[in-house]
């Protein structure tokens, strides 16, 4: 922790070496997080970089009472990625289908199919989804966001969120049944 504090102080002084050290320390988890939102690596890298730029710009405002430093960084980078998703990924409005998916998330008893998968399988499954459904699925099943927060974050309706969640299960069902012989 002392080393992390020293690095943070270096980042406050706009020291390039400290910034590089912090960036490389958090690069992999942040990239993995962003990669789940985006289909391509360069998008994920760009999101990481944009988020880390915000971190470096505001590292002087960080206080320990707000939480751990990585969580603070992680939140910033995720929100940055979501902003990018909202700007770049068109999310189709499926309000008319929302009623069909009303029962899907909540009626499954909180079953999370992603948790049973290995890490790389998650990404393989997510690559089979459309970008918007991928984002909603990631937020709901991986990040643990409630539907309401997802709707607010992506500026869409809760019905649309539900429809995307239903769509993700429908797409993943066949894959999981064929590969893992599991029931969603």
């Amino acid at each position: 922790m002392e080393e992390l504090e020293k690095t943070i102080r270096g980042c406050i002084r706009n020291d390039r070496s400290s910034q590089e050290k912090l960036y490389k320390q958090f690069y992999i988890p942040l990239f993995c997080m962003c990669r789940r939102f985006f289909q391509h690596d360069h998008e994920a890298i760009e999101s990481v970089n944009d988020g880390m730029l915000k971190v470096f710009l505001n590292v002087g405002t960080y206080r320990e009472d707000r939480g751990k430093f990585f969580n603070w960084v992680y939140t910033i980078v995720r929100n940055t990625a979501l902003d990018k998703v909202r700007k770049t990924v068109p999310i189709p409005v499926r309000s008319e289908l929302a009623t069909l998916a009303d029962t899907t998330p909540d009626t499954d008893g909180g079953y999370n199919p992603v948790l049973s998968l290995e890490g790389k399988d998650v990404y393989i499954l997510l690559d089979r989804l459309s970008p918007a459904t991928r984002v909603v699925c990631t937020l709901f099943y991986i990040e643990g966001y409630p539907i309401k927060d997802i709707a607010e974050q992506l500026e869409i309706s809760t019905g649309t969120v539900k429809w995307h969640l239903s769509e993700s299960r429908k797409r993943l069902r066949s894959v999981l049944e064929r590969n893992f012989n599991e029931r969603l």
Partner: protein
Amino acid sequence: MSEEKKNHPIHGPAEPPIPIPPVEEAWPLMQQKLDARMPVVRWHTTLGRHLAGWKVLSAITASTIVSVSAFWLARHMNNNRQSKPAVTQSTAAPQDRLSQPADPRYRQQAQDKPDSKINREAWKNRQPGDNPEIPNDQEWQNKETSANHAKKTVSPPGSQSNDDSESAPESGNSIDSKSFFISKNPLTSKNPLNSKNTHGSTPPRESKTTVDSKSARGPMNLRDNALHKHNTRSAPFTDPPSSTHRNTRAHVDLASSGPPPLPDRSGYPGAAGHPNKPGHSKAPAQSKSPGDRNTKGYLNNPGFPDNPGHPNTPGHSISSGRPNSSGHSNSSNHSNSSGYHNSSPHSISSGDSNGSGDFKDPDHAGRSDKSRRPPQATVFSAFSLQNTRIYPIGRRLQGADSLSKNIDRHKKIPRAENGMAGNDKPAGPSKKISSKREHDLLMSAGLSIAKSFPIGRQQFSSYNVNAGSNTLIDYIPAPFFRLSINNRIYLEGAFQWNSPQYTSSQLVDSSADSSTRANYQGYLEIQKVTLKKLYYTDIPLTIHYRAFGNLYLGAGLQYSRLWGGVAQENAHLQTSNVNGPTFDTLSTSGMIALKNNPRAYGKFRKEDWRFLLEADYAWRRFTLSLRYQQAFTPYLPALPDGSKGKDRNASLSLHFGYNIWERHGRK
């Protein structure tokens, strides 16, 4: 979500579940973002950013000019204060002022003064029979040779154009109370070649002299021939009032003067003649007159060439009250054709010209004319008394060096004090030195370092020519060579091998192609090259003029040749399917040396001509220059969209130079 998620198999496992691009590829992109938003603070970066504004530069320039001007004014005022006592002292000492007239301007003014009272009156008193012609040099020499003993050696009036007697009427001597200008003695100037004239045959002439109440003793009547024939010691016209004035005495051929009585003859204590020199009259008592006092003071000036006792000084009696009072009473067998034409109106040429006279100047007897005549002898033919000052108006005498020194000593007398207009500043020793230096060439060479500042839309760039971060190469000293024509103008040439030129973020090249990257085969890759900085080799040639003090203003031309540059190369990936989800994202971005992209580098104009405007402040061997340069042509003839480029190179730079080598040369 917590920090423990870093090791979560989904959120961030120790082993990445998917291939992750190496962080070494991601960090440069991050670094570019940081450089753009959070540049590393360096002193020159900060300074350059702050100095980029025109307001700051204008303020610095204005403050520099104001401070330099204030410094110069303060220095100038100090000089003025120091020069005042010299003027006062010079006014109080009349004999010092005598050194003024050596300046030819004074002489010329006295000669050319058309409204001179002396000249007018002298012209009015001119006798009808007066011969205005002036014998030339050869005639004088002949006469002097035949006379075989000359009492004085004077320059013939015709030999020098500055002879005052030429411009003055010959009919008489006139004395102005203010302007004591004595024209040439008509007795000596007239008929000097008539060697056979005897005293009796010479028509009597009367020297009409106009004198004022102070200096004149009435019209001077010349003595008759008989009187002078045997009374060589009783010359009424005296030498300067000094018994030691041996060689300055003048001789009067009184035989040609006619027989006028000498009413004031007895009034001259020295009328009996020089006690030590036969035939010389003693110094009269006209020293009591104001003019005589001045004259005496003038004569007592040891530095003045007409000082009594000066061995080379021709005979002058500078008694203002006795304009014709010089001379010796010659024997009767002296003809007036002795040829001793004394161009000085004070000195009356002696009549002992036939060589058989009973008077022989022991100093001059037996000498040839040439030997007796000083090589560059000059006779002060007139003196101008203005405001109780005496200004000798005449030619340079031998031994004028001392006179020049005197003149230099009194350089600070303003001309307006003398009643003479003119804008010329009095010359002094220091001025002489500086004027001497003005004719010297000064060659110098040294080194200078320059710091350029972005102006206008130009942006500061901290990258070097190789797109690296070390910008020390931008400050390589440049050799220069200066040639100072005088202390006001100098030429300067320099060779600056590496001259950074800031530019605006100008798009130089843009090209789109199908992506060749793995996993991005269906994407369109757009490559853009944006100019950041150019590097030239400069050869400026400027001419500088000293505006005031140590501040120089310069202008010139500069030849610049492009040899490098820095640009930012960005690669964008764009989906080629317009119907599907589109995105345009930056894939790579980095600074490159412009030469590494021949396509972009080939679009620049390689040669550039610029004009320069420069303000320099020189102190000893150091020079601080503020230079503005502007190119005549755009550096990018054509833009990527096909339009014509308009941006021209311009820069504002600060140069600091030091003269390592200096050498004086002659023009």
